[in-house]
């Protein structure tokens, strides 16, 4: 049986590292300046700036005061400029105060609360993003985050509210249940791909629906439904099963974040230091070459989807046992399964990149809501900014031409170009 690798979404992950080559004979300072202006850090920062600028244009154009002032722009242009400044600065300061530090609250403890909110939002995004990124590194596209989160939340939630176990053990059992069930759900898609060649894009999308209806059914039966209730909602989690608060009851940040950090370290170790991770990357680069080299490509598909599903399952678990402890319905995934794809792309499918991208998107989520509340700007603007960031970061030549930055390594074959072209 031939193992036809589907080129479509599977060649997704840009894998070649973005380190500009060191040229011999260049002074340290020269190197530093070049790295600063052409390196991926500069591109990333400029991409964020560009995206925020574009978002600012949208905010200003739709602002009523700006529109009113633009009506007499030629008689008093300063009015328009001031209105634009007020609307955009107001929006972004609300975004900042909602996600990092709120200056209007007295004291550090109250002021820093938005940052903990950011990390709370970031927790499931990091975990699910790691899962999607891992699949990308093996050359697979896991769009099944929603389904994997739902079944994982169901499993973790069931353990969380129906079993009686001592403190500590209960939480670990519940988390393990979530990860295992999420992993099996993802592994099913991997198994189908390995055994029959069924494309994982189809199977994971279909499994999303199956998981959704399965959860909807269970929420109507005594298995998951809160006793004596007609709502399709689970009972609250037991005290012993929830993620403990990290900074006391005043903050929502829970120990799930520590699990997200641990997962990042684990994935980093797995991909970069373990033999399985080497096989993952080899298959992701070129499955034919990997098979010739003696790697069991089919097994790699199954393992990759198992682990990927398990990581997404951790995200579902964090939702069920940390963010929403009072019982959940079928909307527990909150679209994180799809957000995770963007997070993985922004993080370039590297563990720490995903970690940073998850925190950035968590900040946008936390700040977006407070921006909506304070300035009346729809939270959807956050989606625009997020997607533009990813788009700009993915196209360094575009950012460079906008800011007229030098192209790295002019005169010799550009490595970056190849990295993107992978």
């Amino acid at each position, binding site marked *: 049986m031939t193992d*036809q690798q589907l080129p479509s979404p599977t*060649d997704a992950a840009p894998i070649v590292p973005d380190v500009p080559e060191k040229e011999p004979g260049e002074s340290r300072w020269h190197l530093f300046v070049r790295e600063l202006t052409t390196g991926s850090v500069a591109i990333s920062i400029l991409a964020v700036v560009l995206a925020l600028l574009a978002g600012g244009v949208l905010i200003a154009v739709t602002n009523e005061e700006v529109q009113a002032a633009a009506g007499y722009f030629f008689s008093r242009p300063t009015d328009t400029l001031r209105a634009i400044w007020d609307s955009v600065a107001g929006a972004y300061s609300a975004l900042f105060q909602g996600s990092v530090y709120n200056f209007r609250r007295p004291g550090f403890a109250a002021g820093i609360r938005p940052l903990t909110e950011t990390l709370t939002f970031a927790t499931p995004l990091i975990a699910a993003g790691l899962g999607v990124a891992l699949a990308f590194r093996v050359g697979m596209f896991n769009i099944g985050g929603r389904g994997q989160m739902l079944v994982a939340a169901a499993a973790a939630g069931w353990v969380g509210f129906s079993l009686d176990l001592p403190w500590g053990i209960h939480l670990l059992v519940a988390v393990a249940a979530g990860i295992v069930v999420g992993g099996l759900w993802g592994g099913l898609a991997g198994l189908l791909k390995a055994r*029959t060649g069924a494309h994982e894009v189809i*199977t994971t999308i279909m499994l999303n*629906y199956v998981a959704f209806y399965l959860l909807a059914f269970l929420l*109507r039966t005594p298995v998951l439904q809160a006793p004596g209730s007609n709502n399709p909602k689970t009972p609250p989690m037991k005290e012993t099963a929830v993620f403990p608060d990290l900074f006391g009851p005043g903050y929502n940040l829970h120990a799930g974040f520590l699990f997200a950090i641990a997962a990042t370290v684990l994935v980093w170790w797995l991909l970069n230091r373990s033999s399985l991770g080497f096989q993952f990357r080899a298959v992701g680069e070129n499955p034919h070459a990997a098979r010739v080299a003696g790697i069991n490509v089919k097994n790699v598909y199954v393992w990759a989807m198992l682990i990927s599903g398990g990581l997404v399952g951790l995200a579902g678990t964090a939702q069920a046992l940390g963010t929403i402890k009072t019982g959940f319905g079928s909307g527990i995934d909150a679209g994180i399964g799809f957000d995770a794809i*963007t997070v993985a792309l922004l993080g370039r499918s590297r563990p720490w990149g995903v970690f940073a991208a998850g925190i950035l998107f968590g900040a946008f989520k936390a700040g977006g809501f407070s921006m909506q509340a304070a300035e009346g700007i729809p939270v*959807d603007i956050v989606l625009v900014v997020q997607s533009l960031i990813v788009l700009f970061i993915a196209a360094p030549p575009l950012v460079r031409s906008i800011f007229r930055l030098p192209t790295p390594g002019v005169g010799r074959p550009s490595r970056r170009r190849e990295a993107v072209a*992978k």
Partner: protein
Amino acid sequence: MTVAAVPAPEAVLEREAVRSWKVPIALGIFTAVALILFVLLGRDGESTFRLSTETDAFRLPDLTIPTRPGGILVTVLLAAITAFSVLRARSAQRTPLWLVALFGVLFVLGFLTWASAGAAVPMSGLLAGTLGLSVPLIFGALGGVIGERVGVVNVAIEGQLLAGAFASAVVASITQQPLVGLLGAMVAGVLVSFVLAAFSIKYIVDQVIVGVVLNVLVTGLTSFFFSIVLTPNAALLNSPPKFERIRIPFLADIPVLGPALFRQTIIVYVMYLAVPLVWYCLFKTRWGLRLRAVGEHPQAADTVGINVARTRFWNVSLAGAIAGFGGAYLTLGAVGAFNKEMTAGAGFIALAAVIFGRWDPIRATLAALLFGFAQNLQNVLSIIGAPVPSEFMLMLPYVVTIVAVAGLVGQVRAPAASGKPYIKS
């Protein structure tokens, strides 16, 4: 002493026989399901198929089938097809596609018979609902097929549909002309495609990344403008006139099929033309040959003088126009106003239909119809009432798709250069 001459072993050339058991196994699973559902868990009573509505010119009487015998009959037929498939597989032959299709239709009929014990299934309603939900999927799938055939993975179908829906609603509301709205939808789809094409062809960004990100971008933009501009000015900007349904005089009187197929808006009639047209152009014209050459082997196409980048750019734009056109159906054909995230994942299902349909416009259309049927089942089951928890009935089509993809489609081969940028050296 003589040594008995050992006859040299004769080389036997075996005929290469590839036995694929996937199809028989898949059919066997379905037959087992049918046996359990229709026979062992069979329901008593009578199933009625309402073939006509009151407004039909020729009215057919309702078709009434006793549920359990009907189920048994269907199961026997399914078992016969499965047995035939096993025989074919033993002699290393393939099961013909039409037989698999017949199997599918029989299974669906058996399922409807079983589900509707003691109730009546409105057949034209079932078909019309299926078609209605399939229209955006089919247009999206056509856009996806063209994109991938020319070598650009079009994950942005969702974004193109949504942009088309948004633009058609706004343009048609301002001009009060649904046809102009349709044009606006195509332009919006093309604009999304321009970004996809520019980033994937000029900047050589990974096409899946651009596609996914474009979906998010369009979702964000349309939701943002919907909340801040459309909702306060709904009368001016978000109340497009809907297309009138056009009744095709003679064809609309065909029993069962007529009302569903030929009392539709102009968008649906365009679809009837678009599907065969895309198929014909892809496989029978010079344009199609060039397009596929660029998607399969861009270097060879370049060698014979086809401009790969330009071919890709304009065909991806065309794909966007088609998908945007489908998006207009959501606002101008079905709902009558734009709503936040109104595509609700239709673009991703269209993507699945593209792969399920093996990058062929006709097969992709059939796959889209299957998904449309799956989504419409919810409405039908709410009418006839479901014998098992409705969630399982709703889940069934997606499970069927998984089994079908695993068993019947299996390893599919995408156009060879799909998703791969072409860098001229």
